């Protein structure tokens, strides 16, 4: 292998490499720094995300191509996903500092966070089954640990174990699927999938179903969504916000690449994804209805949001806007999720619904962030959630899944009920006690996330235009 090629490949993943390096630096710092200075690791991590963001810029501009012998894509979709992931990671870092202040293993936490983000980034760019498996593993392995990070908290431990057990099963299933697909395609890169032998039908169906199990686990879709509410409730709050959003970004992009690579004639993947979308959004919504725990509610609502996002996946290849819809959905969903968990973080983990009355009186900004986040989830204009839903409905109709759009509409109406169930006391009831917060830093990134919902909603054009140019595999 010529050295020049290797160097060129390295340059292609310079942003990812910077995150690897940043993680190592954070680790070394954490090992060296005194206990009082552990929070400094956060600043290094933050700087790492900034550097990686800067290094991602070229990939947003240059035309996309495959690298590492076809195992990795350096294209717009991956770059956009990387930007979303890095920004979300940065927000999570800022939220984590006050949250973990008393934790003695404060430092290496950021290494794990960075590597988890890296997993999502690699997943977004993966174009081979090997890279899929290993990126999934990186994302999951760090995710399990992050969920368990409150080592004195039984809820955290329980959430992590369940996350792990479900993930291990899904992964195991996926490996069998990957093995079969490899055999059918004669290689691991995705570009071999369209050439599956025509006799492969049943084998391919089983194989794809097994791979789907793994991908659905990552995006939090039915039937392996069960970890989502548990992690939302049990994991450390900033981590919950992170885990419900960031891995999903990578997994959705990979899912898009994957289904687009499948031979559409032999496999009814679009219908399968559509059914999965319907089931996911409905189940998530129904389970949300009577939640009295705000974090758990957010978890279930994340499930239902995944269902909406899957609508775009189902429409891939049948609608020219499907990829735009998918990416825009991620842009709308991630900050909404972060803002909501940011509010919970800022309010010191306050999670019982009964603790929320009168929030608007005491903390206008936090209440507004929560309201914006929820309204965006509902899809109220001019928030980005609305544009996302508009696009999702449009692509579903265009792809011939009008029933799915109607289904989603009905679900949206149902969802109003539980979002309003939280918002109504926040705005209409009087506070019973003074609510303390974690401080201005957490509040400000929360508000910034919420503001992003407004900004990306009103000024959607640059995003939509960029996404329209970003179709993976082209």
């Amino acid at each position: 292998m010529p050295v020049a090629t290797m160097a060129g490949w390295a340059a292609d993943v310079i942003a990812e490499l910077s995150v690897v390096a940043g993680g190592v630096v954070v680790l070394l710092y954490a090992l060296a720094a005194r206990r009082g200075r552990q929070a400094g690791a956060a600043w290094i991590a933050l700087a790492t995300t900034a550097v990686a963001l800067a290094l991602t810029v070229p990939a947003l501009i240059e035309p996309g191509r495959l690298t590492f012998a076809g195992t990795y894509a350096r294209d717009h979709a991956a770059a956009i996903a990387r930007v979303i992931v890095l920004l979300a990671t940065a927000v999570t870092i800022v939220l984590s500092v006050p949250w973990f202040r008393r934790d003695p293993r404060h430092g290496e936490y950021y290494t794990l966070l960075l590597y988890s983000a890296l997993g999502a980034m690699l997943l977004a760019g993966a174009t081979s089954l090997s890279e899929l498996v290993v990126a999934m593993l990186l994302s999951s392995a760090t995710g399990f640990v992050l969920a368990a990070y409150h080592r004195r908290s039984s809820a955290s431990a329980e959430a992590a174990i369940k996350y792990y057990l479900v993930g291990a099963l899904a992964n195991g299933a996926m490996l069998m699927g990957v093995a079969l697909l490899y055999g059918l395609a004669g290689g691991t890169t995705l570009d071999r999938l369209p050439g599956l032998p025509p006799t492969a039908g049943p084998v391919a169906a089983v194989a794809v179903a097994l791979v789907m199990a793994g991908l659905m686990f990552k995006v939090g879709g039915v039937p392996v969504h069960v970890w989502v509410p548990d992690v939302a409730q049990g994991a450390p709050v900033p981590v919950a916000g992170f885990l419900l959003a960031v891995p999903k970004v990578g997994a959705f992009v990979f899912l898009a690449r994957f289904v687009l690579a499948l031979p559409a004639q032999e496999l009814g993947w679009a219908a399968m994804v559509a059914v999965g979308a319907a089931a996911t959004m409905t189940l998530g919504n129904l389970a949300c209805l009577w939640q009295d725990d705000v974090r758990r509610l957010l978890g279930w609502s994340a499930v239902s949001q995944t269902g909406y996002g899957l609508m775009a996946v189902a429409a891939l290849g049948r609608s020219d806007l499907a990829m735009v819809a998918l990416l825009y959905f991620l842009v709308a969903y991630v900050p909404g999720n972060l803002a909501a968990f940011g509010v919970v973080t800022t309010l010191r983990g306050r999670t019982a619904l009964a603790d929320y009355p009168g929030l608007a009186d005491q903390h206008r900004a936090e209440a507004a962030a929560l309201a914006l986040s929820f309204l965006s989830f509902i899809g109220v204009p001019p928030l980005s959630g609305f544009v996302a839903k508009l696009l999702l409905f449009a692509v579903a109709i265009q792809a011939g899944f009008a029933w799915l759009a109607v289904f989603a509409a009905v679900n949206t109406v149902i969802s109003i009920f539980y979002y309003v169930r939280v918002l109504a006391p926040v705005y209409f009831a009087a506070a019973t006690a003074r609510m303390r917060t974690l401080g201005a830093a957490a509040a400000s990134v929360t508000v910034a996330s919420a503001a992003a919902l407004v900004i990306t909603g009103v000024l959607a054009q640059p995003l939509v235009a960029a996404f329209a140019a970003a179709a993976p595999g082209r």
Partner: protein
Amino acid sequence: MLTAAIFVPILAALAIALLPRHRGLGASPRGLTVVATAVAAVPLVLLAVAWLRFDGAPGFQQVEAVPWIPTLGIAYRVGLDGLSLPLAAMTGLVFTVAVAYPVDLRGRPVAYFALMLFLEGVSVGLFLALDLFLFFVFWDVSLVAMYFLIGAWGHGDAQRSALKFFLYTFAGSLPLLLAILGVYLAAEPHTFDMAEIIRQQPLAGGGIYAALVFAGFFIGFAIKTPIAPFHTWLPPAHVDAPGPASAILAGVLLKMGTYGFVRILMSVLPDLWAQLAPALAVLAVISIVYGALVALAQTNLKRLIAYTSVNHMGYVILGLAVAGAAAPGQEAARALALTGATVEMVAHGLITGGLFLVSGSVLARGGTYDLETYGGLLGRARSLTWLTALLAFASLGLPGLAGFVAEVQIFVGALAVYPALAIVALLGIVVTAGLFLRMLGRVFLGALPDRWREFPDLGRREAGLLGVLAGLVLLIGVVPGWLLGTIDAFAGPFVGRP
């Protein structure tokens, strides 16, 4: 200029929302009322100027357009014609009056005025929007603002009513969204531009797709209007909302539905509308008679007025059904019906808006809406009585007042196209007369119960504001030419009147 009419109140709302709550202007309800009223009047003034510049030519005028999401064919497009101009101006007026109208602020003046102004900008924007996307944005946002107004300043079971309102009308907005998307996807190239879509008529071929789009629009607008049997969100929302919010809900928000029927559904799918016009007319007549009869049985002042809205919106739909019907040779009658329906939208906004403000004042003084507990208030509250009576007579369609101008045109038009239905619908005006006279008799006439010996009359501010509405109702009733001329500039070409 139209943009200013939309965004001055919205920006002012944001500015007010950011005011500190316990210092300065934020702590002074009186000062805020003055400021907010002044801001609320801005769209009214701007639209009055726009009206002066309006030249009566067909098509959209004074269009202001900026690309918004060109990739998706979305632009910020506003403009007006003979249909939207009166409605937008009426919106400005009703809001100005409602903002200035005294109400129990529950110690949250900042939020109240911010929401009211925000809602004003949004509502004006909806009537001026020439882009389906923009239209829907305003449509949905208005629901949210109204939800908070009812929930936070309502009374009774306000939160439940607000939720029901929000859920129900949002449920209506989603079929609307799907239908808009259906139109968008059918247009080639894909666009949300109303003028372009109306020109293209992308769904002219009919078929199941067009039928589904029609159904989506219809459900969305029918819920908002509301047409019976989609009206059940209306009474609780009205009863529990604060007076000015009710006035806006009835005066402005309901018009969004009827306006949508004309602006979008009838314009985009005229053939289908013509096919279904008889059925729609039947539905309208049911709304008319049903709304009137149910209102007749009410003992709650506000519920009574709320049901008359169902009745009046039935007139509007009847007019629209007639206007869109396939009746060769009756273009003049159809134009008359469309003009009448539009006047009814404006008139209902002023009249019912005024009546809801009145009911707010009655509640503030008597603490209940129960008709039977009142009586003989004429002796104590003269201006309240006279203003209410005037508005009530306007609502029951007395000539010389705005309601008559609207209803007579609707009936005349309907009679030319659907004589039998029109005659059934006419029964509605007798029932309406009965229920309003009964209401006036119960509340203001008869013996004065002892508990109301000290019932205070309207304050000068209330009387003045209601006077403005009543004066306009009278003006339209006596000299409607200026309004009818403007509307006819739209209605004539719309029905293809030679």
